[in-house]
């Protein structure tokens, strides 16, 4: 059995021309012995002669042992909540998509901001010394809050450095300040799904310039798609494209991708209703890990691992406990009911007069934007 030309990633017009000239199979174009002289001529005409190798690229095969080895070496971004870290096998995985879903006020954005800070923890502290890219669709990003989290994180690291008294740590802690954390976060805001799709397609280019970035956050991927502009078929399609691109970015550039999702009400056959993650089943199929967040009562939050290949479904509570003050300090997000705090100090952000860049080259750090305001 031969490979049909139609199974090559070529545009329809090129395929039609090949068919008209009698090239039905790839083997017509080039056999094992080498290129067919006529085939070569046609490919040159169509401008695909040099690309044929990449068109028929065979992905490499690895043994499970190698995959395991790579997995063990791949770093994790800690969440600083021991229960959640344990549940996620040590934190958010680099090279994968992790999905956070939850009702309003369940702490999705808070965890996202926390991760943006955590990814920047210096290497000697067990961090990644990375940077983060934050794509905001809900205008839920608050620099004040980020600053608070950053302060807590720096305080914590200083405390660790004081106790450990290692030279590496001492040197790196000096460079690890709230300012550098704020510098190390790239922020982009999108206002509708078109901008979001454009922003996601430009991540690749952005990451080529900023090699330090190890975390990409999309908060939230659901919001722009729930306006009802797209019908469900178009929506599924657009979401698949987004997730495919994010998956590719995560793998190729070895970054962690964190997307947040909202909840929707589903009515069952017996008219009972329950809350399920929004955006449908096809979307859920893409994320390799799905974490559901919920607020149990004041100051007590819970995370449930909904889907994971590695870990069984489990749940964890994270809350402020007197015995683990250090952790709680850092995990400022659980100190208070944040939604109320945030709304009172919310900054109109970003400047509505400045057009949102469709490429990320013009992305500003939060501080720059504050000056604009």
């Amino acid at each position, binding site marked *: 059995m031969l490979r049909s030309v139609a199974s090559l990633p070529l545009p329809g017009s090129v395929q039609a021309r090949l068919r008209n000239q009698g090239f039905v199979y790839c083997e017509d174009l080039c056999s*094992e012995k080498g290129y067919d002289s006529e085939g070569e001529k046609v490919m040159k005409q169509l401008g695909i002669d040099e690309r044929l190798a990449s068109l028929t690229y065979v992905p490499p095969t690895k*043994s*499970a042992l190698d995959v395991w*080895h790579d997995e063990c070496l791949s770093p994790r971004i800690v969440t600083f909540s021991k229960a959640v870290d344990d549940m996620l096998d040590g934190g958010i995985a680099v090279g994968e998509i992790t999905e956070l879903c939850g009702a309003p006020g369940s702490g999705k954005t808070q965890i996202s901001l926390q991760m943006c800070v955590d990814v920047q923890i210096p290497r000697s502290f067990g961090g990644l010394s990375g940077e983060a890219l934050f794509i905001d669709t809900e205008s839920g990003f608050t620099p004040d809050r980020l600053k608070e989290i950053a302060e807590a994180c720096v305080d914590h690291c200083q405390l660790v450095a004081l106790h450990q008294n290692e030279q590496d740590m001492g040197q790196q802690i000096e460079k690890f300040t709230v300012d550098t954390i704020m510098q190390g976060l790239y922020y982009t805001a999108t206002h509708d799904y078109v901008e979001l799709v454009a922003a996601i397609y430009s991540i690749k280019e952005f990451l080529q310039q900023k090699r330090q970035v190890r975390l990409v956050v999309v908060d939230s991927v659901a919001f722009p798609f729930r306006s009802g502009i797209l019908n469900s078929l178009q929506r599924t399609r657009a979401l698949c*494209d987004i997730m495919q691109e994010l998956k*590719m970015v995560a793998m190729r550039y070895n970054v962690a991708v964190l997307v947040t999702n909202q909840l929707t009400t589903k009515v069952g056959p017996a008219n009972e209703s329950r809350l399920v993650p929004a955006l449908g089943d096809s979307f859920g199929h893409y994320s390799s890990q799905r974490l559901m967040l919920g607020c149990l009562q004041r100051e007590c939050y819970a995370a449930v691992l*909904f889907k994971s290949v590695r870990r069984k*479904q489990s749940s964890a509570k994270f809350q402020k406990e007197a015995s683990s003050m250090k952790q709680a300090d850092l995990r400022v997000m659980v100190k208070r009911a944040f939604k109320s705090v945030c709304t009172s100090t919310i900054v109109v952000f970003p400047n509505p007069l400045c057009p949102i860049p469709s490429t990320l080259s013009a992305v500003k750090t939060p501080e720059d934007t504050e000056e604009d305001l």
Partner: protein
Amino acid sequence: MATALQRPLRSRISIVQYAATRSVTSTKPDTQNDQCRKVTRMARLCTQMNPLLEEDVLKSLHQREICTVVDILQESPDKLIKITKLSFKEILQVRQSIIANYSAFPIKGIDTYNELLSNTAIIPSGVEGLDVMIDGGFLTGKIYELCGASASGKTQLCLSIATHIAHDFKQQVHYIDTKTDFSGKRVQEMLEAKGYHDEVSGAVMERIQVTRVQDIYELFSFLQHLKTSLHHEQDGQHSIRIVLLDSLPVLFLPFLGNNLNDGWGLMNQLANTMKYIVTEFHVTFFVVNLAVHFSEEENIATDVNKECLSQAGNLVVSDTVKPALGKYWLDVPCTRLFIHKIDSSDSRQITVMKSTYLSTRKHCKVTIQPQGVISA
């Protein structure tokens, strides 16, 4: 030997039996067929096909848009004489030789049966309840499908099967991973939970070959590559007997909407390639499909498989869930298994949703444990 095809196997097929079916090297009766394979089979006319098809003859044929084998067979001899300036006899000779080269040869029924017997194997999944349900295991030469909602344990079952075959039969397993879901850590955990030594586990994991494909085109390239490498194998060697593909819908979702026809065309080609590989090299394809709730995904290109669902009458959730990929794909797998959550978070039920040889009412209960998917 006949036991290999006897369906009502109550117990799990023994390893010995499996090994026996495997080790038999069949001396292929159809040497003629083998020779045919060596001829480069191309659709485009070329000088190697027949000495009468010389360069200038081909040139004049191409000018009249007769480029492929099908074109020349469809054209009337009168016209061909005019175009090529060959005699009637020569034209017939060319046609004869092309037909002889390109048509399939009839083989005696008994020969195909014997070949099937000596080459078919039953591959146990390693999950006891599932094996009983599917009469001992997966038959080679067939395509199986597993569908289920998100987080229902599809990947877990795939990993279990891969681990089981790589360990119990010391065979290579191909695992095609389309959404980077394959987890080496999970496989290692399964092996550890089963109590194997590190060296054994290492060897098992060495035998599981993982290929990560990004899109449907890469999958085609990989399958062609797999086909070529299986071609070079000696008869009866059967180094690979199962290929797992997790998961399929991800590859076709980008074609939703305006490109739906392209997607169907590619789906057809994929089915074709898979069927060729399973029958020609006696392997099993185990593909994973997604089940979606149709209240939410009403406009998605899938059709409600109402008939198939009503047959599986004991499904509680079936009326709200349907497999993706639509009706066309329904034809491709010989058996479609449906996995869904019941009661607690660890137990699952697997049901036969469609099958050419199993009763569709059959079902079994399994649980997901550290050592993999096991019978409940």
